[in-house]
């Protein structure tokens, strides 16, 4: 983030520096934008660093978005292929993360439009634990708890789920989430509030 601010100070055309405490913060590392610029100049190692940094969050965002592992892998490849393809024309206009997740978001929207809405559960996930009051045992194991959390997130409406995932996986602010999803800041806030309320209600027995 500091390197990002340094880029901004150099007058490279960034609109604003948004400081958000994120789990994907890379302190004392080269900023994403600098890595992308290096890759533009032909540095393949810079791309690899960029890829290693973002591959898992992007994959999880896609996987939680469509609930289809194979399709998520295809979309994942498409997103990174787009990054590679636009190497020559990429310009430093916004944060790299925002741009990357917008690519992923657009592919999810295309999937939704093609009526491939998430209807089935992930294949290799264990069965969802029933609510606490329906379970014979009062204690829920730690593994089940984690699966319950994932399942609850999976059960959110797509807009709320995307807002939640963009915050958790992309480490974005309200404004950045709005930029990626194409809505205003207040709409993002509202979606996140609803998502948190639903998750809290759903996971009240495990949290």
């Amino acid at each position, binding site marked *: 983030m500091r390197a990002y601010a340094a880029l901004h100070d150099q007058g490279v055309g960034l609109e604003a520096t948004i400081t958000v405490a994120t789990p994907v913060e890379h302190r004392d590392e080269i900023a994403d934008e600098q890595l992308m610029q290096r890759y533009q100049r*032909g540095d393949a190692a810079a*791309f690899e660093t960029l890829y290693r940094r973002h*591959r898992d969050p*992007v994959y999880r965002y896609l996987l939680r978005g469509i609930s289809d592992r194979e399709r998520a*892998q295809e979309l994942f490849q498409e997103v990174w*292929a787009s990054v590679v393809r636009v*190497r020559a024309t990429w310009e430093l206009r916004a944060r790299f993360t925002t741009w990357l997740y917008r690519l992923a978001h657009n592919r999810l929207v295309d999937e939704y439009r093609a009526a491939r809405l998430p209807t089935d559960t992930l294949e290799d996930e264990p069965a969802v634990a029933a609510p606490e009051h329906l379970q014979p045992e009062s204690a829920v194991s730690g593994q089940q708890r984690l699966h319950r*959390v994932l399942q609850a997130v999976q059960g959110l409406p797509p807009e709320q789920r995307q807002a939640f995932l963009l*915050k958790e996986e992309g480490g974005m602010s309200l404004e950045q989430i709005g930029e990626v999803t194409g809505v205003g800041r207040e709409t993002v806030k509202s979606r996140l509030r609803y998502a948190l309320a639903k998750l*809290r209600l759903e996971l009240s027995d495990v949290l």
Partner: protein
Amino acid sequence: MSSEPRPDDKELEDFLAGRHPLGRAYREAAQHQGAPPELDADILAAARAEAGRPLPRRRPRWMQPLAFAATLTLGLVVLLQLRHQGGVGTPLEAPLRSQALQGPASERPIAPPLPAPPAPKSSPVPAPASRDESERSGAIPEAAVEQAAPPATMRSEPSSAASAPARTRESEAPEDSDARDSSAAEAVDANANANANANANANAGSGSGSGSGAALKGSVMAPPASPSSKAERAPEASSSSSQPAGVSPPAGQAERPAAMEGSAGPAVRKAPVSNPAPPEAQAMIEAMREHLETQNQDAALEVLRVFRRQYPHLSLPVDLQELEAPYPE
């Protein structure tokens, strides 16, 4: 209206700050899920292949508007140049252009006021007092032709534009009296030179018709001519100062020789440079009249053909103009 945030706002703030238990639980649950390693190879290979390719040279952003502006400017310059040379301009530009072509104002002799002084009685052709008068009389001094703006038709414009280079040559050409082989042009040029060197008030004592105000004006407007320009002006001279009575151009065609300079093209420039011999022209006209009186139209046409070959600028008298109608150009 308390400043304390509502419960959901507090929850949202905690979530955005990464302190919410839901966020922690999600990160704990999802941290073990990652992209399959088998995808990495393809993506990284594609990235390396792309990195090996040279970046296509990109045009700077300012290149396109600059190119547009340059094209526009160039087009305007070409258009203006064409207007300047090709005769798309307005008739009002012609006098300005002729003045501009004759050099800076400081180099030009000061022209006397336009109203011409009364011509001396000894003058064979009275100098017209104004352009209107000269048009009515049909006799157009060269100076008047030069000074007059061309008629407001598109056709007249090429003539002034085409004569402009010739005038430029005139202004640049040194006085070369040896080169003057045309007597009519010589007379005009001699008067012009004499008047240019003389004081403007000395025109009363010149004793010649071309020493009048109009001729003086001609000396101002027409510097010493080159042979080519003399070739153009020879018929003008014959049609104005020493024009025979029967060859006077009809009204409305008074400016025709000057106006035809450009449109007549090379044929006009090839007009006989040596003696225009107006008496000969007069003799031909008389011969044509005689042939017509004797109903010998073929002979009249033959004379007309010869006449036209020698005097392409001279207009026929009104009674002979019907002869020219079927004349093959």
